[in-house]
């Protein structure tokens, strides 16, 4: 399988592939986001208990799911980067981390905005909220570390190592926080136990989750393309690419 996969890790091929996938992914993400949001925010019935304010679930849940999904894919990229020394995988870490961090912020923000009318407070020291916050700190650590070195290569490798350490720690953090929460307070969440969701609300939610995943993939392709160009700027194929695109823009303007 690796023999088959290996050529795709070549920066030039990967750049082409990302360029090929990006428009499709972005279009699909945009369409499904539109469907999911309009259906979820305007056409689903209101919740019998939470009224209209539950509709934020269509943003909150996809962002929360993909904030963790982005971290997992980052950790997989980190493993590939460290074990097989694939450079493109190192760049992928730097490409995914800020997107994942923004998803985490979206999940936290929408969660707080949802918590205010439902729980009467912006923030509860609940297990899920706390581990999401810690996830944000882990993302920020990876981003800060990758930018802290004069040598870009060292930064990429160090952040790969940190992402792996983080992924080993993530379950430990998750369970310890859950355990800590159930020791001190348990009632906060059980009072607002989720009613098993109705199909009319589930479908737009699933579409939104799909949309956020596609969006993540599309943005990763875009950022990875930029990262490849930045890191390979001394290579002939990049120079050729730049000079040919310059030429064509000159022709258009002329």
């Amino acid at each position, binding site marked *: 399988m690796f023999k088959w996969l290996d050529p795709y890790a070549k920066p030039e091929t990967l750049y082409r592939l990302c360029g090929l996938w990006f428009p499709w992914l972005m279009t699909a993400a945009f369409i499904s986001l539109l469907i999911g949001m309009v259906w979820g925010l305007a056409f689903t019935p209101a919740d019998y208990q939470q009224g209209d304010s539950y509709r934020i679930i269509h943003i909150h849940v996809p962002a929360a799911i993909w904030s963790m999904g982005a971290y997992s894919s980052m950790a997989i990229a980190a493993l590939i980067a*460290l074990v097989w020394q694939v450079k493109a995988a190192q760049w992928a870490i730097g490409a995914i981390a800020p997107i994942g961090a923004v998803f985490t912020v979206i999940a936290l923000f929408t969660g707080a905005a949802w918590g205010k009318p439902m729980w009467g407070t912006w923030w509860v020291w609940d297990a899920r909220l706390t581990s999401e916050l*810690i996830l944000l*700190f*882990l993302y*920020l*650590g990876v981003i*800060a*570390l990758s930018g*802290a*070195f*004069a*040598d870009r290569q*060292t*930064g990429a*490798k*160090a952040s790969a*190592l*940190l992402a*792996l*350490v*983080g992924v*080993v*720690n993530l379950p*430990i*953090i998750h369970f*310890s*926080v859950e*355990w*800590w929460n159930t*020791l001190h307070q348990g009632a906060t969440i059980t009072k607002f136990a989720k009613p098993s969701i109705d199909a009319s609300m589930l479908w737009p939610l699933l579409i939104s989750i799909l949309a956020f995943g596609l969006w993540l993939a599309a943005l990763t392709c875009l950022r990875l393309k930029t990262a490849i160009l930045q890191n390979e700027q001394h290579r002939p194929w990049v120079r050729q690419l730049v000079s040919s695109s310059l030429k064509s823009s000159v022709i258009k303007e002329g």
Partner: protein
Amino acid sequence: MVMFKAAFVREWRLLARQKADWLNPLMFFLIVLTLFPLGIGAKPNLLAEIAPGIIWIAALLSVLLGAERLFKDDFRQGVLEQLVAADEPMLFYVLAKIISSWCSTALPLLLISPLIALLLGLDATAWLAVLLTLLLGTPLLNLLAALGAALTLSADKGGILLALLILPLYIPLLIFASAAVDNASLGLDYSGQLAVLSAMLCLALALVPLAVLKALKLNVG
């Protein structure tokens, strides 16, 4: 074994000559502990209630403070480069470094813990719990701090970055350690928390030195 002994003796000689390396974190620990009663108020009940959290946060910060210099001098003076270039297993160096850093920054905290218990009004059972959690938890603090120090070795702004990277990883430790002391001061059983702390320590002992090694090699280039 010869390698380990040589590295270990070297570490102790360095520590004996640079007393600030282990005295400063200790003083920092004491000063931070003094600040809490001044800031929060010196009611004995309140102090005894928040003491476990305070002690652990102070310990965590003082270990972090000492960690920044862990590999810095060896990096600047080229010792690390020689070690990487030499065809000897570097793991002994890493282990000697971590063990001696535990002895120099965390062991003093254990030794002065009766004094801390007096200052914060903890009774004997709570003090014993503090001692046991520190005994099991501080090696973990040193291991992770060494990892942070190794990762940020050649970074431009190492110090604050080190804290940013490592503090989130300390959270499980903080939770279980202060829960153990809480249980102890309520007269409950806390062997479960100690077991979890030992499990985390075993996991870290097995994995972290390898990660430190990788990070050091990465920074030396």
